[in-house]
């Protein structure tokens, strides 16, 4: 699964990099002078205490926030700011910290909505629902059913998502992001509020997405066990500043990280 457009990037090369990015809201500095990169095919974790600027960082990457300084390079193209539709077209998909599904639609329709960018039949055909529109609808239904099978949510396809339990909503949201066939998948606390079993399921899905589809994953997570097991490299933010970057083992033993999490005697 991969999105079209842009140059091919080999596994292990830099897919996205942010350089010296700063973002402030009025006087509050959410992110200051942060640089890191995400390499193709890896699972990259962004961690940090509450209010460290992790979600702001994701919002910058997919164009929802525009940083005041710094540059973002995605698939070789450098921009000072990303726009949401550019990010989506370029192959960046995401899930949200608080589930942001389309509440009034069924699980199936939610995931189908993820294919919007890939559907091109015009309104005339859609209105008659014949020819290209019907063909396209069936074709994309096929792909969506594959995702439904992959996530094992066959039995809830027709259920309006507002009625689903939290764990399943998170899974449908992952499905909706996968339907975009992203090259870079941003997961904002995919395991928040889950019990152990659900966390294990979700971790398995994240690993499978990375393995089977070769999707690069950037995730924010508070469960250190999950982060250390899943990720290839970890970047640590605190108060909007990058304090560490490296493999899970390096980060685990970094004094600045330990101080940030446990506090330090003054």
């Amino acid at each position, binding site marked *: 699964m991969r999105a079209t457009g842009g140059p091919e990037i080999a596994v292990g090369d830099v897919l996205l990099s942010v350089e010296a990015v700063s973002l402030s809201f009025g006087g509050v500095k959410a992110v200051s002078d942060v640089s890191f990169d995400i390499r193709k095919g890896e699972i990259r974790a962004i961690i940090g205490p509450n209010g460290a600027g992790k979600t702001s960082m994701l919002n910058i990457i997919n164009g929802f926030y525009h940083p005041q300084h710094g540059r973002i390079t995605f698939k070789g193209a450098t921009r000072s700011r990303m726009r949401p539709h550019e990010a989506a077209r370029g192959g960046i998909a995401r899930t949200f910290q608080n589930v942001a599904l389309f509440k*009034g639609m069924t699980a199936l329709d939610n995931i189908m909505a993820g294919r919007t960018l890939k559907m091109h039949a015009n309104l005339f055909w859609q209105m008659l629902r014949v020819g290209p*529109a019907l063909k396209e609808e069936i074709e994309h*239904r096929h792909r969506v059913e594959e995702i439904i099978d992959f996530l094992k949510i066959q039995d809830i396809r027709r259920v309006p998502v507002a009625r689903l339990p939290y764990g399943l909503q998170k899974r449908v949201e992952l499905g909706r992001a996968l339907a975009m066939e992203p090259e870079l998948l941003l997961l904002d606390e995919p395991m928040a509020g889950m019990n152990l079993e659900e966390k294990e399921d979700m971790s398995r899905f994240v690993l499978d997405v990375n393995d089977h589809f070769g999707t690069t994953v950037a995730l924010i997570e508070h469960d250190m066990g999950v982060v250390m097991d899943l990720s290839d490299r970890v970047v640590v933010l605190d108060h909007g500043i990058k304090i560490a970057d490296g493999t899970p083992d390096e980060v685990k033993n970094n004094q600045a990280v330990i101080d940030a999490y446990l506090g330090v005697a003054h």
Partner: protein
Amino acid sequence: MLYRETGQFKTSYAADMAIFPIRQDRIALYVLLAIAFIGIPVLDALQVWPFAGEYLLRAILIPFLILSLAAVGLNILTGYCGQLSLGSGAFMAVGAYSAYKFGTGVHLPLGLFDIAIPALPVLPSILLGGVMAAAVGILFGVPSLRIKGLYLAVATLAAQFFFDWVFIRVQWFTNYTSSGSVTAPELNFFGLIVNKPVERYLLCLIFVTVVALLAKNLVRGNIGRQWMAIRDMDIAAELMGIRPLYAKLTAFAISSFIMGIAGALWAFVYLGSWEPLAFNIDRSFQILFMVIIGGLGSILGSFLGAAFILVLPIMLDQVPHALGIPISVETVSLLVFVVTGALICWLLIVEPHGFARLWLTGKEKLRLWPYPY
């Protein structure tokens, strides 16, 4: 036991995505269409009660069909795309007056060059009325890109007052008639003169059936999902590559197009001759109530809501007379207001999502019947 889809296996996605995937629903629809297209004209021809004297057709069925059409239009905008609008009356008026101008010939002296279009036949006039309404809808939909909810409702209210004013003050639209009231051209459809109530009824029925089918196709296709995505979570929708500009403006355009056609039919087929008052703010509210009571985000709900808001008061009006209770006409009409109002409150408390949700719940229960779960 009757309503159960056991044994109806789908072997293709096309069958699974049909409008009515369940056989019983399809049969019910065919029966309903047969009654509407064949049964009612036959009963009318035989003059069987309650069809004697054209009252039912002229005062109930024709306005019901036309207002259902308008409700379908508003439901696309408010129910599916989540953009609250109080301008339905204005869009209907634009449809009606544009159709009137196209039907009687447009002459616009602009000094340098004159625009002169000869009088067009009725069908193109009505459709062009819809197109003009769509253009106006897009124009008044532009604020929706920046404002939401009640603030947008106020912006659409501006459309309502603006067009009320335009059609009263700018006499060009009424062909300079002294009274401000205009009369529709003869309803000539390719040589077929539509005049009797039953013919007018069938004309409306054809329009409503076709538009409802096309609208249903749109809302269950890609654009429908985009509209609902914008309605439910616009930020997530935008980050998935759905363009709010495109989704909202298509909703405004298509919704206004349908309301414009409904307005043209209301003027040409139901009223015959009319004044701007026919499309005032009361009309906007009436259609909004139909959509809310019927069910936001449901094509079927538009029809149920229209039936409730329009037909119920008329029915209630007949009750005391039918029972032989001797009370004055004024008291009855006051009582109708009280009872209708109370019923609306009761319904919204019991089922805030309207008749469409009641209908769905009923169907779910029916599938399990006689077991409770």
